[in-house]
């Protein structure tokens, strides 16, 4: 139905942050400046007549309003709207000018009359009255407020409050506890609106043994089992309650070995390659006397679980990869050059500054290492152990990269979410302590190179990154599952909330995107190329068609008690394996040739990969040459006004693709109607479309890209990056390199 549907995206500059889907009162103009609060959110302090710096130093575009600090966010409420009507993704928890406190990295107060400046920490004193507040955010925004007209005392108080609440001493002070306690455990009536974590979602959380069982079946890892010895976190504080181990290792053995490992982290199974090679992660063995013995036992157990009884390859991540401090330092340097240094001054040395930040180098190192591991799994058919001292940082990166490269399921939206859940959340990455950006950036590279192979988009990754700073979601809030359980129990008892059978506070996982975005905005996560691809095969619009097929095959071969059948299954008719075998043979014959430069087999493997046509549902290796990696512009440069390409950027092509994909879906619907399929789904096309940009009613004519598109879409630099003293006229950026010589006389004098 062409006529009835909404054709253009509506863009509102501001939406009330909470519960937009509930019926709200029709009168829109808000008379009083009031902060919009979430359940459990309280106002700590506020100041009136505050000016938010938007554009040029002149301040003509600046907004006047009220600055509010709550226990969740820094909020700015204003009557005025921004100078230009523009697009923004409306966030359900956060308003346009809101910054979650957890996103604030540094609070700087300035008194420009006295020429004073102070970085405010928690519980500190401020001896001067601030005229200006600058918030440096973890997502690279820099936001400035001026207090020229505000009461000096209230200005000071609000600054202190922001400084205090953005650096909570105890994780339980994070707003998530308050929010979840009120929203989901308050009255029975509200419970109805609340989410059932995991229940309505397709993303497995890997917090029960059935999720692991499914993963074992999906990957055909029949020689592996779910181990329950850590229920109640009795063995290891940082491991999940359920994890997967070789079948040949009995619970008794595992308990015995556990004490040898760092933090009692027994080796964890991550994933099985179709060839039967397993990917395992392991922490260092802390007891040197036991080291050889335990290592041997573990290795032989993994070997036994391999259909070919292949050897185990140990990959020492600490030796081969930069450590987390290096990575954090690189990110800080990157931020320095992206948003803090003057755009023009850093322009000349941009490439070498980028290099000296070492960010790209690290990204490349991670990718390259992951490719090495893929090579071991794919070509050498051996199982790989990722060895890292604590097994909680680098191995998260490598194991998830390997799976992204090898397993097409992980490139679907749900598969990817499951991957993050499995390798990061459950394996105990210390989100609370680290909050580094590492993982996303690496994936972005892979995404860049094979756009059609991923169901999700760049926007999705960006938003996922941002969600780390919204302390409501369980996903990125804790260091490990146990910490989450303990904290929530403590909190619940202190607030006398009855948990019932849940045992823990029900934090909504980040995967419930409706917590943050409307359905329509969520469609920005869908990669039209991906959906479209399936459509060309004239199949259903999700990746499930593929995974179903694959898991079915593995089901049949993994019936317990018939291990021989399984072995036959993966050796004989498995086409992927035979194909790889032939690849190895070819490699060997090529290797016999004389070569000027020695090339390692894995280099050869990479080269060979690039000489073949890419099967997007198969193995994907990233291009590792430095010339082919580029910085993630949407994430790192989205707030930089000078770097914004108005009406341009990749999103303009994305728009075209979305429209076309939407149109195809629409046509499919119509065709389906003709098939006499009871005409059920066709009316609701507009709501159910997976695409953000919709086709128009005259499908043959492609609409012009909307005016608001830019390389920063769906974000906007306006008001989000106020470096002191950078902003001139919009054209100032073009004038670099051009000197206007109005007087040629002075010029002549200078040169003579």
């Amino acid at each position, binding site marked *: 139905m062409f006529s009835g549907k909404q054709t253009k995206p509506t863009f509102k500059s501001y939406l009330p942050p909470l519960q937009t889907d509930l019926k709200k009162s029709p009168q829109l103009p808000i008379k009083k400046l009031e902060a919009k609060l979430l359940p459990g959110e309280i106002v700590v302090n506020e100041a009136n007549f505050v000016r938010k710096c938007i554009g040029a130093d002149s301040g003509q575009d600046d907004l006047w309003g009220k600055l509010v600090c709550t226990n969740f966010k820094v909020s700015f409420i204003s009557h005025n709207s921004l100078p230009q009507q523009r697009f923004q993704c409306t966030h359900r928890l956060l308003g346009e000018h809101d910054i979650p406190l957890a996103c604030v990295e540094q609070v700087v107060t300035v008194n420009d009359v006295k020429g004073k400046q102070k970085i405010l920490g928690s519980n500190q004193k401020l001896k001067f009255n601030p005229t200006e507040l600058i918030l440096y955010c973890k997502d690279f925004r820099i936001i400035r407020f001026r207090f020229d007209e505000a009461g000096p005392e209230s200005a000071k108080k609000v600054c202190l409050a922001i400084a205090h609440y953005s650096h909570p001493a105890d994780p339980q002070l994070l707003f998530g506890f308050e929010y979840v306690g009120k929203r989901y455990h308050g009255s029975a009536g509200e419970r109805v609106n609340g989410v059932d974590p995991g229940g309505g979602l397709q993303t497995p959380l890997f917090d029960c043994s059935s999720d692991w069982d499914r993963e074992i079946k999906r990957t055909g890892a029949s020689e592996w089992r779910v181990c329950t010895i850590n229920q109640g976190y009795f063995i290891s504080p940082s491991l999940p309650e359920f994890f997967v181990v070789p079948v040949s290792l009995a619970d008794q053995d595992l308990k015995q070995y556990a004490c040898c490992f760092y933090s009692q982290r027994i080796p964890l199974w991550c994933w099985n390659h179709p060839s039967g090679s397993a990917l395992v992660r392991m922490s260092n063995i802390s007891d040197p006397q036991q080291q050889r013995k335990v290592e041997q036992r573990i290795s032989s157990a993994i070997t036994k679980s391999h259909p070919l009884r292949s050897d185990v390859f140990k990959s020492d991540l600490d030796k081969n990869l930069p450590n987390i401090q290096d990575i954090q330092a690189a990110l800080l340097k990157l931020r320095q050059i992206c948003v803090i240094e003057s755009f023009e001054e850093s322009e000349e040395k*941009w490439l070498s500054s980028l290099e000296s930040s070492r960010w790209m180098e690290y990204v490349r190192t991670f990718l390259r290492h992951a490719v090495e591991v893929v090579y071991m799994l794919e070509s050498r058919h051996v199982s790989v152990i990722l060895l890292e001292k604590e097994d909680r940082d680098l191995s998260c990166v490598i194991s998830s990269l390997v799976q992204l490269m090898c397993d097409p399921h992980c490139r679907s939206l749900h598969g990817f979410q499951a991957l993050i859940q499995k390798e990061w959340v459950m394996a105990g990455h210390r989100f609370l302590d680290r909050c580094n950006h590492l993982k996303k950036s690496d994936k972005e590279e892979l995404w860049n190179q094979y756009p059609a192979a991923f169901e999700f988009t760049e926007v999705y990754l960006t938003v996922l990154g941002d969600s780390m700073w919204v302390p409501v979601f369980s996903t990125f809030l804790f260091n490990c599952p146990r910490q989450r359980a303990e904290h929530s129990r403590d909190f619940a008892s202190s607030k006398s909330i009855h948990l019932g059978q849940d045992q823990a506070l029900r934090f909504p996982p980040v995967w419930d995107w409706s917590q943050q975005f409307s359905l329509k905005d969520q469609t920005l996560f869908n990669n039209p190329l991906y959906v479209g691809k399936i459509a060309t095969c004239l199949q259903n619009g999700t990746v499930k068609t593929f995974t179903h097929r694959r898991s079915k095959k593995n089901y049949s071969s993994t019936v317990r008690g018939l291990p021989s059948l399984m072995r036959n299954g993966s050796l004989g008719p498995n086409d992927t394996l035979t194909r790889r075998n032939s690849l190895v043979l070819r490699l060997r014959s090529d290797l016999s040739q004389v070569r000027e430069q020695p090339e390692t087999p894995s280099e050869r493997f990479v*080269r060979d990969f690039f000489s073949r046509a890419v099967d997007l549902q198969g193995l994907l290796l990233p*291009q590792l040459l430095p010339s082919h990696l580029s910085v993630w512009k949407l994430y790192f440069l989205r707030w930089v006004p000078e770097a914004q390409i*108005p009406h*341009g950027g990749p999103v303009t092509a994305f728009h075209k693709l979305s429209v076309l994909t939407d149109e195809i879906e629409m*046509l499919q619907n119509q065709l389906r109607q003709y098939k006499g399929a009871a005409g059920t789904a066709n009316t609701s096309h507009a709501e159910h479309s997976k695409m953000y940009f919709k086709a128009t009613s005259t499908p043959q004519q492609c609409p012009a890209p909307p005016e608001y598109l830019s390389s920063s879409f769906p974000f906007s630099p306006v008001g989000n990056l106020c470096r002191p003293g950078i902003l001139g006229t919009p054209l100032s*950026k073009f*004038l670099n390199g051009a000197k*206007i010589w109005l007087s040629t006389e002075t010029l002549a004098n200078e040169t003579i």
Partner: protein
Amino acid sequence: MTFRRGSGFHLRLLRENSRLNAALESCRKVNAVMASAPIAPYNSSPLGNSSSQNASRESLKMEPLADVTLLPGEERVIDKDIIYICPYNAAVKGKVFITNYRLYFKNTDSETPVTLNIPLGVISRVEKMGGASSRGENSYGLEITCKDMRNLRFALKQEGHSRRDIFEIIFKYAFPLSHGMQLFAFLSQEKYEENGWNVYEALEEYRRQGLPNNEWRVTFINKNYELCDTYPTILVVPYKATEDDLRKVATFRSRCRIPVMSWFHKENHAVITRCSQPLVGMSGKRNKDDERYLDLIREANGTTKLTIYDARPNVNAVANKATGGGYEGDDAYQNAELVFLDIHNIHVMRESLKKLKDIVYPNVEESHWLSSLESTHWLEHIKLVLSGAIQVADKVSSGSSVMVHCSDGWDRTAQLTSLSMLMLDSYYRTLRGFQVLMEKEWISFGHKFASRIGHGDKNHADQDRSPIFLQFIDCVWQMTKQFPTAFEFNERLLVVILDHLYSCRFGTFLYNCESVRDSNNVRTKTVSLWSYINSDTSLYINPFYTPESSRVLYPVASMRHLELWVTYYIRWNPRIQHQQQSPVEQRYKELLALRDQYLKKLEELQLSDSAPSSTHLTNSSTPNAATPNQHITHLQTPF
């Protein structure tokens, strides 16, 4: 492997020569030099191979030279057993085959095909490597330097001066002008339906812009190249300027390249004019006619101050006074504002590209890639050219007329005017319009292609050579990257243009200016590149193109967004995946086809709507058309 990698060019040639001749396959066995007959007829006796003692057992099984079809007019000159020293693999044994147009190599020693297919025009230098007594394997041979970012090395047997003949032949056919021979473009017999020489007609193009009008007139003063021998015959000048004025102005402008109008803004009537530097000299000469003429340009649309963009760094402009040139001083030109754009000269650009080649060929400099790239300054030069063009475009769209010049007005000036027109005028962003733009701003206004590229000329160290046009195409590519939907053509067109910039197969980029082209009868004796391109435009269409006629494009000329064009500069590296078409483009095309298929289906169904037996229709349709229906049923599975 190198088959796919090393020869994007080769694949293209293969496609265009899809009339693969089965008989040709047999010519692999013929080793005799065949100077006249282009293609050997079927040779019955493979054992009659005269050089069979050279050929290994393996090579007898192979089919060298089987897959290349010669162009009409192309003739074989020599073929020879040779070892190609591939920088990525080991040495590859094979056979090289030279025609008056190309060098073709195919390996004979392994299963994986290795081929090279290089127009001789691409070669800038041929050297002998090693001597008859050189030690070491493969130390005796040839080294060929190409204009398209690669070098080739071949090794031959050391006995019997085996390289002498092949060296001489390559040297002769790669540099025909240095040997009193004709460029291949004059020998080619290719025929195409469309005549690409008709793509650009100056009067038609000016008419499109709304000219002449009562501010600007067309003059034929240069119809015999008497006013300026490097300008086209048709020029547009201020309505009030007389022919006599033009002649007087010509005396004050370097090489008589007077300011002429090149682009007209239909709404605000602002114009882009182009010229060469004024002949001010050390003494600071003035010329009343030139000053008055510039005022006429300014007055045409009531611009208050005519902005003069001098593309050079101001130091260079001053230095040019010593050789009689200079810039418009503000004493003499009180109604003008002079802006230097800091773009460096042809020598700087040549050195910059040389440095770039060093870090990308044969291998990409891995350890300090970004700082190495920075030290080539290539992207910085791109940035300056683009930001200069942005300023020009911005000035013009704000209603002020501008004048652009550098020293002679045929290198940096052409870059700036053509790029700013690309930003201002969406017509030039179409496949046709882009051809017109290049014909107008580059070819007709006398960019010295012959000198800058050195077509058919052996003097590889000529200081006149410089990658100015390549730099322009790179800038266009940067714009297409920033605005993926704004251009009707794709990256492939840009690569093909650059390949044929050197190939000498088409007449389009030959010679320095129109007058020389006329005297060589280029239009009648050679084929235009646009004949070739417009005979199959589908290859060059950007499926994402969305026409937006009034949009002025302002790319962001920042190092944050400028990227090295790896698919051009690093295309010979086998470690890089080469795709004939970007996967996104390809997917989009597939989706378009799918949509059309659905639309057709839907139309069919609507036609037979009233008929109850729609299933009958499905059954009666072709098997191909039936497949969508099968799958449509799957669509009902909820997801």
